[in-house]
């Protein structure tokens, strides 16, 4: 257990240094002369976070954007990396997979999450039912990868199957299937894992939104003779539009960045790679930082419209206040 001591010491020192820095800032803010007090306060409170974000996010983003136009030796090569991305068969597969992911995951997660939220609304044991579906949110992608490898487990035909799905296939007389190896449908089986994780998020947010729809409205629709589907379609859905948009955009962004699931389950082999995984492979495994950076840049461009939209909504809200 001697390794514990050194690690604990590191943590204690880090926390002490941090406390000292914050204490110093507070002291400066309090002792500042009256005339510049407000400015010192703003600077002191904002500076640590601002510096960290500038160094950790803004500067790297700019650097990476520049790196995207260089080759493996750091020489400028114009648009070569992008030409590679849109012409090489394996790179095109990567882009195609990413599109499939970003269409299917948000859609399926939201549909399942919404359906589940509606079904369990006011049901007995609502809290337990919610927790069961929400639980995957707490599990790491790596853990989820191992969980689902177990589900998709494959043994040769004629041997007792250990994976749930292949056991069912055997029982139905279909014969076992290599879920993670058979392209192109293996991408779908990876997507199922992400849907499994994200449905809980969609469900929780949408469930709260549904409870926020005034019951009088639904009651009024019911008295007018609307059946449950019509009540849902014409009253509930318009009432939760804001939450739906938030859920869809959040899951879309998470999906675009998805890396761990692909990394742990197939490592991007068998035609399952996505942009975020390929970026890691190119930059840190294949010695092609330029290509990796180009992929990262494309990722950013794909997310950009969503950011602009959200920033607009945010600005409107602040103007209202």
């Amino acid at each position, binding site marked *: 257990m001697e*390794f*514990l001591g050194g*690690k604990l010491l590191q943590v204690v020192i*880090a926390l002490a240094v941090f406390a000292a820095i914050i204490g110093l800032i507070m002291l400066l803010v309090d002792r500042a002369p009256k005339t510049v007090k*407000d400015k010192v306060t703003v600077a002191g*409170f*904002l500076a*640590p*976070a601002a510096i960290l974000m500038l*160094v*950790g*996010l803004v*500067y*790297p*983003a700019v650097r*990476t954007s520049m790196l995207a136009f260089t080759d493996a030796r750091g020489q400028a090569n114009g648009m070569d990396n992008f030409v590679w991305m849109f012409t090489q068969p394996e790179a095109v597969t990567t882009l195609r997979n990413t599109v499939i992911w970003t269409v299917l995951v948000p859609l399926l997660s939201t549909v399942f999450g919404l359906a*589940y939220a509606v079904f369990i609304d*006011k049901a007995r044991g609502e809290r337990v039912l919610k927790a*069961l579906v929400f*639980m*995957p949110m*707490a599990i*790491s992608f*790596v*853990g989820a*990868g*191992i*969980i689902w490898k*177990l*589900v998709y487990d494959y043994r040769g035909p004629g041997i007792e*199957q*250990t*994976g749930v799905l292949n*056991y069912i296939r055997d029982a139905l007389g279909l014969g076992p299937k290599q879920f993670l190896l058979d392209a192109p449908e293996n991408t779908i089986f990876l997507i199922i894992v992400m849907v499994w994780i994200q449905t809980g998020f969609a469900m*929780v*947010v949408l469930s*709260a*939104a549904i*409870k*926020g729809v005034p019951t009088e409205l639904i*009651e009024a629709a019911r*008295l007018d003779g609307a059946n449950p589907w019509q009540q849902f379609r014409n009253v509930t859905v318009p009432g939760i539009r*804001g*939450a739906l*948009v938030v859920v869809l955009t959040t899951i879309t*962004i998470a999906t675009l960045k998805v*890396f761990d699931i692909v*990394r*742990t389950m197939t490592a991007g082999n068998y035609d399952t790679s996505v942009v975020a995984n390929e970026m*890691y492979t190119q*930059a840190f495994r294949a010695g092609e930082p330029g290509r*990796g*950076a180009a992929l*990262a840049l494309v*990722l950013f461009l794909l997310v*950009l419209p969503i*950011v602009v939209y959200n*920033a607009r909504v*945010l600005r409107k*809200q602040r103007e209202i206040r």
Partner: protein
Amino acid sequence: MTATPAPKEASRAGIRQRPGSDPAADAQPIMRRVKTKLTSRWATAAAVLIAVVWSIPTFGLFVTSFRPAAKQIGPRSDGWWNSFIDWDFTFKNYVDVTVAAGSQSPNLSQYFVNSVAIVIPVTVFVLVLASMAAYIFAWGKFKGRDALFIFVFALQIIPLQMALIPLLQLFTQVLQLPAGSYAQLWIAHTMFGLPLGIFLLHNFISEIPGEVIEAARVDGAGHSTIFWRIILPLSVPALASLAIFQFLWVWNDLLVALVFSGGTADVAPITQRLAEISGTRGARDYLNPAAAFVSIIIPLLVFFGLQRYFVRGLLSGGLKG
């Protein structure tokens, strides 16, 4: 945050007001009541089905982790559901993954300590720095405040992948942070956690009544006193939810760890070790389920223990859009 209390009340009211006891429903024609009951029965069945499908993978992992090696791999292996027939369970897998010595051993206890040593300082750093910045964005007065805030919000969307290469160069070549220490991971995680932290806390802090702060100011309190004595205590619910978020992200992260930890037992977190041992197929595969469960037990405990705060955090950022 204003949206949160309302749904809760609605749900409480909803549980008491079951469809059958609703006076309005009693006045309905019998046919319609039968129909509503039927649909809700189908809905409940569908909900239970989803809940079961969603829980089976995790449950399968849990059962498998207690099965002896011979049942998991090799000629006598079969599916985990058979455990309930032959009732053959063992704790040996857990002993092997955590404390067994030897270079081949997964040695998870060391990596487990690393995960704790990484996650605690990062959570503290992000909470303190983000709340300081959020306070200034909500209550400070300076030019360009709103534009800067929207910029910070937009930073959330920079893909981590984009920041990794330049940041690694900066850490190792310019700052010369010591290898084999947690420093790189602490700083990187803090940088990446700040934008969302500031955004979530700002939503909460900006809704603290202005009179409270004004009163303290009239009493002669400076910014630092107001921040530590008034803002932070009042923000505990938001801080708790951000703490859980931050905890889960950092604990479950793989990408940042892969790039900055160097992969040794001195620094690397448990997810990285898990990815390593599950990535290689071999005779020790039977340890993967136990290893996975060791890694997800802490997040699951945190999650179930503090679920209410977690959900509230999702909503404060979510429902406003």
